[in-house]
């Protein structure tokens, strides 16, 4: 390796490491602050490691957000499952049963993925009030499923499009109908797509703030991110509790991301429509 090459390689690594430090910095601060006792929350020693591991911040935060953590789980898991299932059916139709106007319809679906929710919030609240689902977790699950229709249809459509049409035609000859093909041919080989979509939906529903805030804001029923904002917004100076609450809120998606990062990447790329 020439000397010049050595230096330029070194510079690349240095820049990358600097970027990584920047991306990790907020996590570092959350961790060390969350592990400090209240007396140790001195602004001049913010960057110092805690003198030991003190769990009082985490315990206090857990006491306050545990019900909301449970709410989020009870909302996110069913919503992610149901919307993935709906997405696989829609994706199947869009990919394998094209009909006149189906592509236009698909684009109209996608538009829904991009529009800001502020443009539909008031009718949404009114409708939920009319059908008696306002302020109920079931209502929030339903809303997440509906708003998940575009992205899940997109992800499944691109997966099913990659499956050769010959397979579908052969099954037709074997006597499989519309539902039969879905049930016996496509569904059994859909697991990779399900994994990507479930992961994507899980993350975005868990991390949602706006819809949870609007549809389910009562402190007892609210999802975790609403609860964390309530703690942070109360201008309390218990930074250790705030940081611990934020860490608790982030934990499920962090674990999922670290365990299934590759799938996450695939979702990211497909989610931008260009994967």
């Amino acid at each position, binding site marked *: 390796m020439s000397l010049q090459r050595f230096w330029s390689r070194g510079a690349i690594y240095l820049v990358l490491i600097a970027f990584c430090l920047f991306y990790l910095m*907020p996590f570092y601060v959350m961790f060390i602050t969350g592990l400090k006792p209240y007396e140790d929350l001195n602004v001049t020693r913010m960057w110092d490691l805690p003198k030991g591991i003190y769990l009082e911040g985490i315990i206090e935060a857990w006491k306050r957000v545990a019900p909301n953590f449970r709410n989020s789980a009870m909302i996110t898991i069913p919503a992610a499952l149901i919307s993935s299932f709906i997405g696989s*059916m829609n994706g199947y139709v869009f990919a394998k049963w094209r009909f006149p106007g189906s592509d236009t319809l698909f684009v109209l679906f996608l538009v*829904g993925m991009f529009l*800001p929710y*502020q443009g539909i919030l008031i009718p949404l609240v009114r409708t939920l009030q009319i059908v008696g689902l306002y302020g109920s977790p079931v209502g929030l699950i339903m809303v997440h499923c509906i708003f998940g229709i575009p992205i899940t249809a997109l992800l499944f459509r691109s997966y099913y499009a990659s499956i050769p049409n010959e397979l579908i035609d052969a099954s037709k000859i074997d006597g499989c109908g519309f539902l039969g093909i879905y049930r016996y041919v496509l569904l059994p080989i859909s697991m990779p797509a399900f994994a990507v979509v479930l992961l994507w939906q899980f993350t975005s529903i868990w991390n949602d703030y706006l819809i949870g805030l609007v549809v389910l804001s009562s402190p007892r029923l609210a999802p975790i*991110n609403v609860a964390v904002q309530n703690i*942070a917004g109360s201008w309390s100076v218990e930074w250790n509790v705030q940081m611990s609450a934020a860490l608790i809120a*982030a934990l499920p998606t962090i674990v999922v991301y670290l365990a299934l990062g590759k799938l996450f990447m695939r979702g990211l*790329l497909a989610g931008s429509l*260009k994967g």
Partner: protein
Amino acid sequence: MLIPSIIAVAVFIYGFIIWTGYISTVKWNTVVEDHTFVGLQNWIQLFKMDRFHWDLRNLALYAVGFMSQCIVFGFLIAVLLDQKIKGEALFRTIVIFPFAVSGIVTGVAWRWLMQPTTGINLLFVKMGLENFYFEWNAHPKWGILAITIAAAWQFTGYVMALYLAGLRGISEEVREAARVDGAGTWALYRRIIIPLLMPVTFTAIVLTGMGSIRVFDLVTILAGPAFTTDTLAFHMYQSTFGQYRFSMGATVGFFMILLSLFLVVPYLRSMQFEAER
């Protein structure tokens, strides 16, 4: 099988948008639902509103700050990672990591980092840069730009992933051919790779643009004084659910939809075009 979804999308997205548009033309500005038609009165009132002017100014600043950070750093990191780096997977994981956490978590962490008396300011002092002192999100003029730092922290990894996938899609032959023609590294990127990655840049512009229009959770948690960090989304939320001025909220919401269409329509057009090829 598709029909329930079609109905759901038709009602919950398109129907609701039209409904919002309708609400913006009536006099429903108290808790009591009022359907008296007032034409464009809400719109005129909105356009004259000081707060709305702040929102537009903040949108412009936010979009410029957020987009440029995401695109410049996203591209730069992707290019660096594309140099056959050892431990690429680890670097990639760390850069995308923030995207896995919510806007609220991001906001809580950055609010601490942006406390004037501690946080990053203290870090500057520790590094011997005593002259670096910022008010961050509390700055009466540029507070909104500080928020874009937190926003870009979260979203750059996504843009980086898009660029990295794009770079991987450029074949070695293209690079080799350019080198044979005597192009140096700089010229290779400027003349060949950046133009080839235009579709990715376009995607990144649309996605970060949408993110700029709808930013809500970060400005809730990192709010600065008065309207210095106010956004359309926050304005809509407060008008509607704080002041019960539903028609005003609907007007802001519908305005946001109109703005987004400027980004969404060309984007989906380009997609369709690509699909037809």
